């Protein structure tokens, strides 16, 4: 299985690479300016986290929009990757009422795919100043926290998933399981 990571400048992009490597996936970190043409034969794509406000800074997000438009394979957006995705499909971003740094109590409401086999309430690690204020019409919320109403979303008609927190860091519970679930989503989609 070939899943690459689009680097949006975050501090944990390498960690995302490491999780995939340890899950035995063929993976590579690519700059977000990579043309979609070079990624079209992948099985899946991860849109990494980035620096503050980068989701609204179009120049810093490179070709993320092109990937979301053209990819048929599953995509997993993390933090800035998630915010960009929501805005790209018509949602709205804004400064978070309660910026979240380090520990967040996550409440999962949908265990269909990304959160399959994961308990309802877990601890996750976040690092964000902005948040999704309005979720796009074709997306639904699948997790919240007391301080942030949109912690995770999934697309209703395409295999696109996104989380505000960071599943790749060691302090997020069940992080590796979330990545494995994404790989399972890819395996199902390939059939």
């Amino acid at each position, binding site marked *: 299985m070939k899943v690459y990571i689009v680097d949006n400048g975050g*501090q*944990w992009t*390498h*960690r995302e690479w*490491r999780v995939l*490597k340890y899950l035995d996936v063929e993976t590579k970190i690519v700059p977000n300016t990579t043309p979609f043409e070079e990624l079209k034969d992948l099985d899946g794509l991860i849109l990494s986290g980035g620096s503050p406000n980068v989701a609204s800074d179009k120049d810093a997000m490179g070709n993320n929009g092109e990937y979301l438009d053209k990819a048929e394979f599953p995509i997993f957006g993390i933090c800035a990757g998630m915010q960009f995705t929501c805005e790209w499909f018509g949602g709205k971003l804004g400064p978070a009422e309660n910026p979240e*740094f*380090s*520990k967040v109590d996550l409440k999962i409401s949908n265990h269909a795919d990304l959160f399959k086999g994961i308990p309802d309430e877990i601890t996750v*690690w976040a*690092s964000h100043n902005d948040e999704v204020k309005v979720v796009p019409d074709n997306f639904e919320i699948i997790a919240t926290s007391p301080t942030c109403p949109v912690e995770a979303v999934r697309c209703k008609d395409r295999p696109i998933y996104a989380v505000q927190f*960071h599943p790749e*860091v*060691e*302090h997020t519970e069940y992080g590796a399981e979330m990545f494995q679930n994404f790989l399972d989503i890819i395996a199902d989609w390939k059939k």
Partner: protein
Amino acid sequence: MDSNKRPDTMERITTPELADAFIKEQVVELQKQIGDGKVLLALSGGVDSSVVAALLIKAIGKNLTCVHVNHGLLRKGEAEQVIDVFRNQMKANLVYVDATDRFLDKLAGVSDPEQKRKIIGAEFITVFEEEAKKIEGVKFLGQGTIYPDILESNGVKAHHNVGGLPEKFGFELVEPVKLLFKDEVRVVGKQLGLPDNMVYRQPFPGPGLGVRCTGAITRDRLEAVRESDAILREEFAKADLEGKVWQYFTVVPDYRSTGVRDGKRLWDWPVIIRAVNTKDAMTATVEEVPWPLLNKITQRILAEVKGVNRVLYDLSPKPCATIEWE
């Protein structure tokens, strides 16, 4: 050992027996690779280079030259321990360079953390190169590369800490533990007779105490860092926290506040205690040190460390703080 890939069949070294088998194997490999040749090794005091040194001493004895550079930013007793373990106990060929004045003079007045790191890194290479030139006929450079170094750099030869040294001197690399994970290196280290406090040593940054004496480094404030750090480590060991808390140290910022001692007004530095837990240092939580222990440490620091009138505890996880202060 040409391949950088750990064989899938290789058993994880968890017992003294497995460590002994590895040591036996490696000694043979090293003798094959080196023959009568001479090896140079930078001995930092950290577990990886210490284990490589101990292995090489076993394999080639005095044909190994260890160079331990004291940049003046080591912890209390550290350089002395390296000399004691390697020169006195293991009878190694140890070159000890006390370059304290060189480093501190170059760092005088430099307050930018990145600048400080660059100066320390560059001066280290200069000092090491000077020593390397003094030793005739050295063809090999030992390195404490471990498997995570290879895994994390995409399988390509790991990043050296000695700059372009291999290329410059035409050294062949000797990396006997390059396929081991950190826990395995520790088991092997113990079997080779290294002391526990070296084998289970907490991670220590390259620039050493230089990034814990924040801003421009002065000898007196550096001493306050060194002494308070020694007290912290002593008390943590007594409280059986050594080896249980991932990393713990003191920071003395370039800042003063008022104090009073025996009616006399003080204008002294604070000591900040930092104690964190993590696996990979990318995110970290703060250790919940029991109040009585914090009190004891505070009492000792205020009584024994010159120029300090306050003790603080850093409560910040990562993010948004980093583990180090610089």
